[in-house]
């Protein structure tokens, strides 16, 4: 019996989620974001188009994570087709964030974070949430803004996925050598 239980949270996109709007709408958005009209939205262009609700630039690490998730050609950007995936991904995250930001403060505090992660299926210790907020909160207010929330969830999910892959008997324990540990986590954290 698993000593822990989780199911993947929002995977390459939150579960369920927004229906795609029509192509002409998305094309308009794409053109507005693709400022230099290169046909590819770069990290910078995407960063400028996104808001985290704090009047400070959107977390560039989150931007990088998102672009690399959808960039199928290793070009450090997304074309229109890939952008539709990006649009849906971000919209889904906006919906999730709004759902769990119960007091509508624009930030997710520790309790709201506990609800969110528990809602995704994670069973995590109380202390873990403090660590996550301290690690990812760039605003320094002990709560977590939209862009940092996404990045924290992405890292949590990747670590969970890699742990699961090694936990073949699903008992919540893995045994790894030093090099295995390095290889597992170096690309994630």
């Amino acid at each position, binding site marked *: 019996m698993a000593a822990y239980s989780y199911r993947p949270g929002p995977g390459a996109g939150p579960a369920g989620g927004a229906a795609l709007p029509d192509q002409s709408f998305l094309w308009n958005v794409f053109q507005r974001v693709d400022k230099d009209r290169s046909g590819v939205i770069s990290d910078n262009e995407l960063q400028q188009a996104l808001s985290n609700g704090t009047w400070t630039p959107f977390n560039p690490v989150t931007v990088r994570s998102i672009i690399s998730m959808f960039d199928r050609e290793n070009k450090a950007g997304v074309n229109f087709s890939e952008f539709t995936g990006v649009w849906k991904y971000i919209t889904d995250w906006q919906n999730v964030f709004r759902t769990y930001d119960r007091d509508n403060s624009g930030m997710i505090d520790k309790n709201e974070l506990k609800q969110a992660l528990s809602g995704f299926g994670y069973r*995590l210790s109380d202390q873990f949430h403090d*660590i996550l907020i301290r690690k990812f909160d760039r605003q320094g207010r002990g709560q977590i803004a939209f862009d940092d929330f996404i990045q924290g969830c992405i890292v949590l999910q990747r670590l969970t996925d890699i742990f699961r892959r090694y936990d073949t008997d699903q008992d919540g324990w893995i045994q790894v050598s030093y*090099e295995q540990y390095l290889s597992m986590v170096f690309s994630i954290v």
Partner: protein
Amino acid sequence: MIAMLDRDYTGKMGFNEFKELWAALNAWKQNFITIDQDHSGTVEHHELNQAIAAMGYRLSPQTLTAIVKRYSKNGRIFFDDYVACCVKLRALTDFFRRRDHLQQGVVNFVYDDFLQGTMAI
């Protein structure tokens, strides 16, 4: 860097820990300068491999390649990325060592601890 030495997860570094960090930074800088022979401010993949080995890490070629790839920009590694690599390597190694009570190079991790320890780095 703070996380590398913040063993009690307070998010802060005391004076002794600061001294430790300062010494580490100096050592890494000397290492980098030695290897960056053309003073370009960057080193190549195989030079970073050598630098890591010179720091005392015994890693397989595959592990080294994976690590170095993460920090290289067009085949070269800049000083700040090199420092980031050193910090991470040291922090992850320390964390692993603290769990390896029998010093066998193998650790049993429970999910929670794996997450918390790794994420805090």
